[in-house]
């Protein structure tokens, strides 16, 4: 147990803040541009979630741990571009309208697709030269 908070790296937090701005702006812009009906497949959330999982798998394999590009792209952009809360609210609203089949399919395809996307990102990064190799 620590007796003090770890020192925060201000540049790391700044990188995460900047990435978070970009990720959130992109997600909200897609959501505003392509609104979806309650009982339709939420393509926007589904798309940003899978795309973000792919890029995060790539970033955390390819970019060196000591680089600010990793928190910027991984924690900032990918973390903010993808969303867990909206995904859950969409599922709840499908259940509200008794659309169990759609909710089950959306949940299952998001989870299986998300794991597939992160694995693909890792595989692509390893194919490009391995872990932390992009100095």
């Amino acid at each position, binding site marked *: 147990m620590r007796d003090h908070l770890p020192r925060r790296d201000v540049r790391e937090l700044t990188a995460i803040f900047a990435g978070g701005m970009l990720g959130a702006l992109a997600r909200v812009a897609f959501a505003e541009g392509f609104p979806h009906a309650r009982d339709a497949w939420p393509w926007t959330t589904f798309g940003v979630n899978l795309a973000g999982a792919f890029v995060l798998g790539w970033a955390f394999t390819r970019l060196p741990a000591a680089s600010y590009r990793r928190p910027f792209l991984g924690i900032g952009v990918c973390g903010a571009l993808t969303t867990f809360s909206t995904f*859950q609210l969409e599922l709840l609203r499908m259940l509200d309208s008794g659309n169990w089949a759609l909710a089950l399919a959306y949940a299952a395809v998001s989870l299986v697709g998300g794991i597939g996307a*992160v694995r693909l990102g890792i595989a692509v990064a390893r194919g490009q030269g391995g872990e932390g190799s992009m100095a």
Partner: protein
Amino acid sequence: MSAVLLWAGVGLLGGVGAVARFVISTAVTQRSAGWFPYGTLVVNLSGSALLGLVAGLALHGDALTLVGGGLLGSFTTFSTWMLDSERLSEHHSDRALVVNLVGSLLLGLAAVALGRALGGL
């Protein structure tokens, strides 16, 4: 609210949400000895409960875009949940991966439903 102000707000709150996610999830993970990624779970469940609350309070329009889309959308994360799960399968077992996926999914659904019920009171 003007469009410029709205988008500036979404960007700022998105940045704040990302930094808050990082600070809270690393603090939780450092305090929880063990192999399970509690940090991501804590931010995802608390963010889902708050989004449920926002929905229950019937926020709409710009307020919903700012708080639900900008702040909470950025605070919670799908991608790190997936990367955590993938690492569980690499370092522990496929069973740990399934537990983290299905467990977080069901708890998240309960959190958003609970938040919405509280907001609708």
